[in-house]
């Protein structure tokens, strides 16, 4: 399971945790999140900005 960071605001998406309150179950891989999804902290759309995979050590 990976962690991804929004390059605009720093929000971290943890695949192991998901975002249950947004309908994204724990374990959902980044690629499988719907295209219409927007970063919950800053509103940037999934299609617009890269989430950057975080190093395991980070």
């Amino acid at each position, binding site marked *: 399971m990976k962690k991804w960071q929004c390059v*605009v605001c*720093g929000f971290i998406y943890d695949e192991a945790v998901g975002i249950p309150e947004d309908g994204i179950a724990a374990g959902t891989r980044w690629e499988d999140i719907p295209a219409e999804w927007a970063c919950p902290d800053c*509103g940037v759309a999934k299609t617009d900005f890269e989430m950057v995979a975080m190093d395991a050590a980070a």
Partner: protein
Amino acid sequence: MQPIVILGTGLAGYTVARELRKLDTATPLMLVTRDDGSFYSKPVLSNALAQKKAASQIALNSAADMTRQLQAHIHTNLAVNAIDVAARTVTTENGPTLAYGQLVLALGADPIRVPLAGDAADGVLSVNDLGDYARFRAALDGKRRVLLLGAGLIGCEFANDLRASDFDVEVVDPAPQPLGRLLPPKAAAFLRAGLEGIGVRFHLGTAAQAVNHAGNGLRIQLANGTTVESDLVLSAIGLKARTALAQAAGLKVNRGIVTDSFLQTSAEHVYALGDCAEVAGHNLPFVMPIMQAARALAKTLAGTPTAVQYPAMPVVVKTPACPTVVSPPPPGVDGQWTEDVASDGVRALFRDVAGKLRGFALVGAATKDKQALTQEIPALL
């Protein structure tokens, strides 16, 4: 066809451009910026140290990249002198006069500075863009101690970031608590404790008066009689929308450049968004409102007039020492805060006189309730 001209290449300017190009690949597009036109995200500056990013690693795209991506002409390092709304032109400093079909003002805001006495007052820095940030990081090199003026959003975020990278951090603010404008008292006290818990030192209820050289460092005189020794002073006391150009052009300005809910200013064909704008009475210098405004404005510019929608848009304060998220009640709403204090956090709710939830502040473990509470709050616009 006269181009759409966007003044400013911050998050607001570049996002309008990107959203417009999704809808319209034909209309000529021009952007003008005083800086080098690098595309970066300002929120990233608040924890670049913790993310181990040098200033040179923060830009996401260069102006050249953006020129290709946007199929636009980008004038970099060019200052705008005046806007002529009758002639629909923009005059620049030692540069061309630009004709526009539609003009977008995405000018941002300036850091507020207070006058300080002392022989080192002119060395006080502020950070409001990537260039400032690079200068700040260069000035930090070899230093150990930083004094922040201002315990607002940026002051607290930078305090956390610096302290987590082992700098000695002190923060001065005339208010009785950090984030005083956004948080009710118990929530603010919890945040203060969280930051003090990692070693940040606060001087509240006072202000800096003088900054003087003292040996290899600085001596800062506070109004309450205290003297603080430090190596670098960073001023983060607030922002003032850049309204001068608009005002000189005869546009209506208030706290920001006044627009209606279509982002249109008092002049036809001229729009404004972002930190420089006051949209239907709201000045919201945060990312989410900018995204909402940019999407609506792009549709309008592409030919379908679209009013911006502002749902509740909570602001996440980037203080890892004490997670904090706040959805401030809209200005002018009468009501009161109720604060629920637990050992691991504070849940503060703002209800209006009819008992409706209009805002919240969540600190510590209470931040888990953010999504649920956001859904209860009616839209701002």
